[in-house]
């Protein structure tokens, strides 16, 4: 039974519905705004019971945040300084978290909220697919052009959001400037699908869409705009590093986690072409190079 002071939100995470129950109206409203493009009407697969607390001053919180580490002990988990304290109950399909309110108020807390969404997604995969995710979260800016997705992939700070800004509205539709879900290939179908997910990047909007993946461009900031096809092994190794850790909450078996990463990287790199994309802030040159790439892929398709 939910108390009247709880606020409900149901969010679509890939194939799953995550019900968020929050005791704080301000945080619930903020999450509803952030995740507003990802409403879910499915029966919830996982429930997050979010209890917001305010035990720390903002200065104390700011000082503690860069040093935050996660600890797990069976079903229990917490961060240093107890910014997050929680318990999972996989049998009941729920996760309870007590979270310091400041984490929702500041940009610096964004990566922790994203981390929580990522962990909830993989926990839902544990519950619904016996730990075999149908799709993996990849650090990428996904852009739809001509009905297919180009993934601009790379670590934080490499320029994913810059690419999204340089895209604007005239060069494509940005799905997300931080991360997307890439589905595993289905038997008998060699097309990989990319799906939007409510991970928060620097841009204010995210698209709740699914479209086929055309190519992956691994980003490199440079002094010119150029593109070159990557050897399979290089693509495999570099793409592996862009796959967000596919661990469910409390998962400690690193071998299982890394096995999923290497196998998924193998599946993607053998299915779509990979390129190294060196770019500058020259918007015209950037999209000219992308158009040339698409023209060459069109020729390959024929």
């Amino acid at each position: 039974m939910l108390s009247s002071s709880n606020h409900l939100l149901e969010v679509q995470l890939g194939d799953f519905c995550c019900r968020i129950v929050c005791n704080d109206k301000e945080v619930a409203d903020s999450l509803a705004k952030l995740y507003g493009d990802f409403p879910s009407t499915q029966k919830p697969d996982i429930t997050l019971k979010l209890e917001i607390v305010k035990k720390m001053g903002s200065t104390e919180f700011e000082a503690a945040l860069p040093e935050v580490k996660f600890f797990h002990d069976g079903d229990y988990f917490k961060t240093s300084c107890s910014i997050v304290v929680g318990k999972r109950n996989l049998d009941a399909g729920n996760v309870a978290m007590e979270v310091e309110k400041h984490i929702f108020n500041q940009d610096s807390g964004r990566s922790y909220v994203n981390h929580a969404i990522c962990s909830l997604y993989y926990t839902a995969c544990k519950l619904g697919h016996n730990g075999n995710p149908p799709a993996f979260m990849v650090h990428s800016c996904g852009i739809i052009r001509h009905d297919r997705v180009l993934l601009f992939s790379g670590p934080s700070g490499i320029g994913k959001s810059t690419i999204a800004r340089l895209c604007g509205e005239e060069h494509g539709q940005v799905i997300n400037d931080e991360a997307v879900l890439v589905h595993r290939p289905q038997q008998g179908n060699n097309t990989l699908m990319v799906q939007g997910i409510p991970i928060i990047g620097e841009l204010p909007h995210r698209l709740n869409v699914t479209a086929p993946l055309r190519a992956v461009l691994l980003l490199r900031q440079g002094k010119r705009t150029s593109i070159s096809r990557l050897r399979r092994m290089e693509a495999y190794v570099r793409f592996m590093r862009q796959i967000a850790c596919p661990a469910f909450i409390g998962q400690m078996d690193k071998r299982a986690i890394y096995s999923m990463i290497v196998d998924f990287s193998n599946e993607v790199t053998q299915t779509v072409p990979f390129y190294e994309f060196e770019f500058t802030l020259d918007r015209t040159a950037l999209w000219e190079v992308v158009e040339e790439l698409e023209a060459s892929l069109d020729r390959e398709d024929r």
Partner: protein
Amino acid sequence: MKNKITRADDIIWRKVEDEIAVLKNDGCSLHILNETAAHIWEMCNGNYEPDEIAASLFEHFDVTLEEAKADVLETIGKLKDLGILKWDKEEGEP
């Protein structure tokens, strides 16, 4: 005494085309083996001695038997130093 070599327990490895990627379970180190080293690696399964691996290398690559023996010992030594190969415990290190 036979000297057979096997792979470390705390690794994950996958063949990608002709090469092999070996990842330590901690996720911190990743090693890429070229085609020759990959051939040697695939035979390091506890069933073969270095001389047998060298004979196979001689058969499949454009090298003399002496070169193959030297390559096998050098590669095994390097991979052992990296902690991804080990001498079979029951047989003992030479």
